[in-house]
């Protein structure tokens, strides 16, 4: 497994920032969406990649963030930045709640994946039928530009903020790879019993992981709400985001620092590129997208990061047994 240096990460972030300032219109919009998905995927990667606990329900966290952002601002007049912080905290809390129940029962593998899915679905149905969350009509945020509102007439600033969050996600992942906590996570992914025997408090480690994971994905939800200014239950808690998050992380390389970011850029970029292929036949483009996806799994089973490495595109920094 490659461990990029902090300097490399800094260069990547700065490069993306420079690119951001050259963008406008459709590309800018696309890149903002890419960053939101990348952030959601980074959250997924902490739990699914490093700790080996694949979730099918990260929509629960994404939705928690998005709804916190929307409800706090529209119902309670809370400042956008404060709402953002609360939204992220709520994501961590929801993570802790789901984690507490499932880890106490010792769920892992498919069982854990399915229970997260069920939690996200319950959240979706509740949000869709409760007046507090705007019910089925969803919530429309007010359009008002300015720094205090976390909305910008020049959307490049919003992109920079999203990029900032992605940078935090990168640093968190980098820290995982260099800390004792991260080592515990990987240890329990590889062999939980052995980790336990060595005195690792497995439950506490998992709880921390799901809280961090939930917080990052919730941040993505907050940014989504703030960027599109409209959410409803199917957007915020829909299975689409659970799938996007895990797709991006796994395609890019699960359990790697750069995997989720690369996965998100490649997948969404590919989605846009294939758009032109439909030739008036609906579905053609997404079909091609699916084929490329399957091929990419077939030919780079460990994710694009690993594929790049094996093709010698990146100088390997440090080696570690995967």
């Amino acid at each position, binding site marked *: 497994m490659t461990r990029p240096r902090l300097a490399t990460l800094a260069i990547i972030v700065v490069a993306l920032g420079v690119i951001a300032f050259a963008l406008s*219109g*459709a590309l*800018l*919009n*696309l890149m903002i*969406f890419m960053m939101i998905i990348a952030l959601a995927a980074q959250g997924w990667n902490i739990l699914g990649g490093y700790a080996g606990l694949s979730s099918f329900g990260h929509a629960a966290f994404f939705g928690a963030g998005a709804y916190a952002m929307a409800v706090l601002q529209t119902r309670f007049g809370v400042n956008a930045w404060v709402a953002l912080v609360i939204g992220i905290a709520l994501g961590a809390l929801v993570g802790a709640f789901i984690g507490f129940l499932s880890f106490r029962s010792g769920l892992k593998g498919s069982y854990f994946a399915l229970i997260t899915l069920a939690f996200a679905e319950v959240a979706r*149905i509740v949000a*869709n*039928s409760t007046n507090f969350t705007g*019910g*089925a*009509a*969803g919530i*429309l945020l*007010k*359009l008002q530009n300015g720094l205090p509102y976390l909305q910008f*007439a020049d*959307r490049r600033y919003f992109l920079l903020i999203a990029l900032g969050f992605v940078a935090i996600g990168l640093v968190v992942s980098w820290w995982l790879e260099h800390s004792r906590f991260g080592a515990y996570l990987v240890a329990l992914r590889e062999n939980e019993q052995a980790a336990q025997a060595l005195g690792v408090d497995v439950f506490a480690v998992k709880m921390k992981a799901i809280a961090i994971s939930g917080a990052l994905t919730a941040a993505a939800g907050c940014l989504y709400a703030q960027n*599109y*200014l*409209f959410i*409803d239950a*199917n*957007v915020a808690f829909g299975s*689409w985001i659970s799938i996007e998050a895990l797709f991006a992380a796994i395609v890019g390389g699960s359990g790697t620092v750069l995997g989720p970011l690369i996965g998100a850029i490649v997948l969404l970029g590919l989605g*846009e590129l294939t*758009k032109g292929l*439909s030739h008036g036949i*609906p*579905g053609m*483009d*997404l079909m091609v997208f699916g084929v490329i996806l399957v091929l990419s799994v077939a030919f780079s089973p460990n994710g694009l990061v690993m594929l790049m490495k094996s093709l010698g595109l990146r100088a390997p920094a440090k080696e570690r047994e995967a």
Partner: protein
Amino acid sequence: MRRHPKSLSRRTVLKSGVALTSMLAAPGLLRAEPAPVKVGLLQPISGAFALDGDLAKIGAEFAVKEINEAGGIKALGGAKLELIVGDSRSNAEAGAQATEELQSAGVAAVLGGFASGIALTATQTASRYDLPFVVDCAVADTITERGLKNTFRFNPNFSMATAVALKNLVKLNDDAGKPIKTVAIVHEDGLFGSGLAKIMQEKLPPLGFQIVETIAHPTPARDMTNVVLRLRALNPDLIVPSHYFNEFVLMARTLQQQRVRPKGIYAVFGGAASSYRFVNEFPEAAQGVMDCNHWGDPKSPITAKLRETVTAAGKFYAYNTPINYSLVKVFAQAVEKAGSADRAKIIEALAANEFDSGIMPYGKTKFDAKGQNASALPLNTQVQGKDIKVIYPAEYAEAKPVFPING
């Protein structure tokens, strides 16, 4: 690089040949042709609503062709309209992205949107560029209540449509000697169904109708038997359903199977209630179903032509086609009045003028201060025999309502 004289001359000949043919084909175009006016159509070409997007596209294309064949935009020296279709993929993010792409393609305006969630984000995206956006059948009232200067809506919104639906329901009931006393509302639990149920729950009781039950169900629904069993137990005089096509079909079939025969089924924006596919495939279950929905003027000769075009493409006609046909017509008039393809001028023209409403039964389209077409109204239809007939209002009616349907 050394030029090859022979190939050069051949190219020249070819070129002049092309020029000659185009001259022969269109003798009026000897002068340089004015730049075409690009108009964006945002519709769900793929995804869950692909069928609607498809029908909308047929209507818009038909109008563009008609306008171009009649000499294009006269105020711009006969400039042709060029339709650029953006695929919203039936979801809001892709709708915003497609709007950005239409903006990059340099369109003078965007038409369409189709679903409320998509229209909300897409109009907001367009507002960043002061790009005029005329929404079609997305019904959420909020679309025109955000103070966006660029946003207009051609079709009636929720409140307008339900007001008409209720008014006509009262008339229908009164004319038949008030056979309806009890009503059951069945709705899908999304923005559209829930919103409608809420309004109905508020407004029906003061009009003298007793609501015996309001039943929500998810989309997609796997089964309607439980809903229908409840209806059978309650035995309401009238069922007011609002859901999408599939659930409507399931419910109507199950009603027939379970022998539930209310005095009437009165849908508002009913998914299948005014669908020719439904009538064609389940004539018995569809019989007598009434709907209050977007509907083109049945008496216009163009309606017949659009229907032919849609049928020839192997599809079933629905309201998306006449609406988007008419949208393009309204846009073309706005450009004529603006005398320019400049966005600000088009917005100004849209806000200030009255327009012919194409083949929608709106009389003169006039956008109010919020951008809502104040003249927009839905029509009441009823499935009669193998056809869908307009029953209200009188000026568009093709047939008298058959009511109550089951004695």
